[in-house]
């Protein structure tokens, strides 16, 4: 009669509802990631993996200058892209959230719309404008000017590509934070004597820091792992860590080294998340928790 028998006590509605997702993510994400960690200590020889446990892959990774360069290049590029996106996205998201009125959702969706077209097609589109045969440089050429070299297969062009691809993430994250922000608090700050910049620094910025830091992470991580953009916009001097990594699983077939590179990439992503979450003080963030 009483429903608290042993199996019922364990199989609660909470377990039944969250269990499928937990199992799914464990099998399709956690186990594969653990596999990669394991392979990173193995050895590849002529496209075959051998389970001799060793640290050679990491030795190669940190010993050879090329890999160090790729890594540093990717990390710096990702950090720079995140920063530029942050600076550009804030005023835009603020304007939409505060002054967008009834069309604000539409305005945000318009920024996110290019995201509905796949990465490849967008890079192709960008190449059609920036590339050597692209709109800008061809026009300059026809008008008798020298083409802008900076736009043709350079790290600069790759960074423009990254901003193009990922700024919608940043705007959306900040916007979602701002629409739940009570702008009347700014009036309170102003009535109490804070100027507009002071009010922003003391009220708006800290109360929307969680959204901002989530946006930063969401831009940083795909930039760090970016392969397509540097390949098609960056040219020979912009080889990224991600490009080199995917080569290990493709052309060269050195899976063990590729696994070690994946582990390093994951560690860097994780570091950024960790640093960002350290800057969040939940009690001062205006976050009031989820559910009951």
């Amino acid at each position, binding site marked *: 009669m009483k429903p608290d028998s042993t199996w019922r006590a364990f199989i*609660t*509605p*909470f377990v*039944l*509802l*969250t269990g499928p*997702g937990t199992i*799914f*993510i464990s099998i*399709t*994400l956690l*186990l*594969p*990631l653990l*596999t*990669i960690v394991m*392979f990173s200590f193995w050895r590849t020889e002529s496209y075959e993996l051998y389970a001799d446990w060793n640290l050679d892959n990491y030795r190669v990774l940190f010993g050879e200058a090329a890999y160090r360069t790729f890594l540093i290049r990717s990390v710096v590029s990702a950090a720079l892209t995140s920063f530029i996106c942050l600076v*550009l996205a804030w*005023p835009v998201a*603020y*304007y939409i959230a505060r*002054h967008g*009125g*009834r*069309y604000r959702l539409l305005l945000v*969706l*318009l*920024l996110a719309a*290019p*995201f*509905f*077209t*796949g990465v*490849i*097609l*967008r*890079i*192709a*589109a*960008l*190449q*059609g*404008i920036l590339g050597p045969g692209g*709109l800008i440089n061809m026009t300059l050429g026809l008008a008798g000017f020298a083409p802008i070299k900076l736009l043709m297969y350079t790290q600069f062009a790759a960074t423009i590509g990254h901003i*193009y691809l990922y700024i919608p993430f940043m*705007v959306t994250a900040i916007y979602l934070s701002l629409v739940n922000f009570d702008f009347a608090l700014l009036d309170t700050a102003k009535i109490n004597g804070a100027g507009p910049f002071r009010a922003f620094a003391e009220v708006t910025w800290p109360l929307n820091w969680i959204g901002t830091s989530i946006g930063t992470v*969401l831009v940083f*991580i795909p930039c760090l*792992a970016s*392969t397509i953009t540097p390949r*098609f916009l960056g040219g020979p001097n912009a080889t990224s860590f991600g490009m080199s*990594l995917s080569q290990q*699983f493709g052309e060269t077939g050195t*899976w063990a080294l590729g696994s070690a590179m*994946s582990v390093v*990439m994951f560690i860097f*992503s994780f570091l950024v*998340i960790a640093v960002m979450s350290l800057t969040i003080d939940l009690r001062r963030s205006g976050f009031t928790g*989820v*559910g009951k």
Partner: protein
Amino acid sequence: MIDLTDRSERWRRRPMAGLLNLLYVFLYAPILYVIYASFSQDIVWPFPPAFTSQAYADLVSNSLYSDALFNSLIIGLGSGIISTAIATAGVIGILRYPSKRRTLIIVIFLSPLFVAELLIGISSLAFNARILGLPGNMVSAIAANAVEGVAFSFLIILSQLVRYDWQMDEAAMVFGARPARCFWEVTLPTIWPSLLGAFLISFILAFNNLEISFYNLGAIPTLPSVAWGSLRFGLGPELFALAALTNGFVFLIFAVMYVLMRTGLVKFGYRGK
């Protein structure tokens, strides 16, 4: 708004509005260019304009594209359905039934957001090929795409459902509704817009995904992998036509939304004046 009379406020607004417009130009100029070029006879330097629809005819007649479209649709639909179902159950679980493990569950469900697509693709390739011994197949491609979909769906549904009052379901139960009936009659009619949103996002993510699908499928073509191929071996005009069509479809949806909002039929969550 009261700010309209405030001159300094207006002066601060203008640069922001200007930046927003510049951003729109930045985001849309390449796309408009591609749409323009897709109708041109010469895509390398399409000036002066000479229009043709040859690229669209080539796109339709090439069976590689239709196979790829079919595969992409299957991956998108499968991943969208799995993601939405799993995320909905998870969100209801953490919101409705208090538990000490709630934070852990939230971290697990959101963790795919913080793993790059490249890593998801490569690690599931390694796991499937070397641990399970499976060749690339649609099932593992759908599952690997759904990983990311679950996280996005969870975030979207959670942000909407935190405002849902679960006492509504208790009321229905007291009046005689069993749990399934209760979900169907009371919960679902209220929350379906966020489920639809989650489905659309995870569909589009999986439909457009290159890296996750590529590593899980091997030689099976999808639209992004065909596009990737033609980007590597020189741009075909069909690719431009494809990009134009995708964008046309997306903008059709936005135009409908705009008309609905203009006529006041739907508000899409806006509750102001």
